[in-house]
């Protein structure tokens, strides 16, 4: 990916969103930002601010994620390269990552106590990846993704659980 060309195209896209969409947003595009975590090292980071930040963050940051998805499509990024671009506003991404880590910890304890699998709520591939990574060092547990499309979710199993024969009871964390 030509990072400068990609950043320029993102800028063009967001200028149109602000001007033609009438949204009161400011944004800062950073190429090769400092690493934000061990698990996410984007090559282009876009940080939003401004009066319409709440619109970006409503309903689980639906608009923020929509703008990010459209940027992937505009840049024609293959799915495996989506992690190279990261859109954020008011640290929503790091807050969400903390929530996912906590959810992983709680779910791991429940699975250990009950010996039964745990279904997380459906989430994006990026968020599922965070759960898989958060739980990868738990040698007595294993994770799998299951389901299709918007219903795809992570399931946490005891390591020796036979998933092929028994469908686990459905329980969710936010």
């Amino acid at each position, binding site marked *: 990916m030509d990072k400068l060309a990609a950043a320029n195209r993102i800028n063009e*896209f967001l200028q149109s969103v*602000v001007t*033609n969409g009438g*949204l*009161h947003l400011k944004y800062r595009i950073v190429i090769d930002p400092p690493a934000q975590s061990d698990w996410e090292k984007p090559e282009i980071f876009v940080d939003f601010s401004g009066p319409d930040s709440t619109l970006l963050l409503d309903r689980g940051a639906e*608009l923020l994620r929509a703008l990010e998805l*459209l940027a992937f499509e505009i840049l024609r990024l293959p799915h495996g390269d989506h992690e190279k671009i990261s859109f954020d506003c008011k640290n929503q991404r790091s807050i969400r990552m903390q929530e996912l880590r906590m959810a992983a910890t709680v779910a791991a304890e429940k699975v250990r106590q009950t010996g039964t699998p745990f279904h997380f709520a459906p989430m994006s591939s990026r968020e599922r990846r965070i759960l898989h990574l958060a739980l990868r060092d738990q040698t007595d547990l294993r994770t799998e993704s299951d389901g299709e499309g918007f219903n795809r979710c992570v399931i946490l199993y005891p390591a020796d659980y036979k998933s092929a024969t028994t469908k686990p009871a459905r329980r969710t964390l936010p």
Partner: protein
Amino acid sequence: MPETSPNVSLLIEQIAKWIVDEPDQVFVEHLDDDVIELEVAEGDVGKVIGRQGRNVRALRTLLSAAGVRARKRYTLDVID
């Protein structure tokens, strides 16, 4: 902050032209009842819709946010 003049049909047209293979075949019309009609080449419909409708859903989310600012309820129709 100065008020901008929203032009959601131009916004949709620009994004669609960036996404599709045949930008010359992108046409957008803003109908009376705030319906935004997006027409693309037959081979580009899938690109605009996206996997499991993700792209068109993102466009509708963006239109919805623009509608909050403009106090309108926009609808996006994709035709080929």
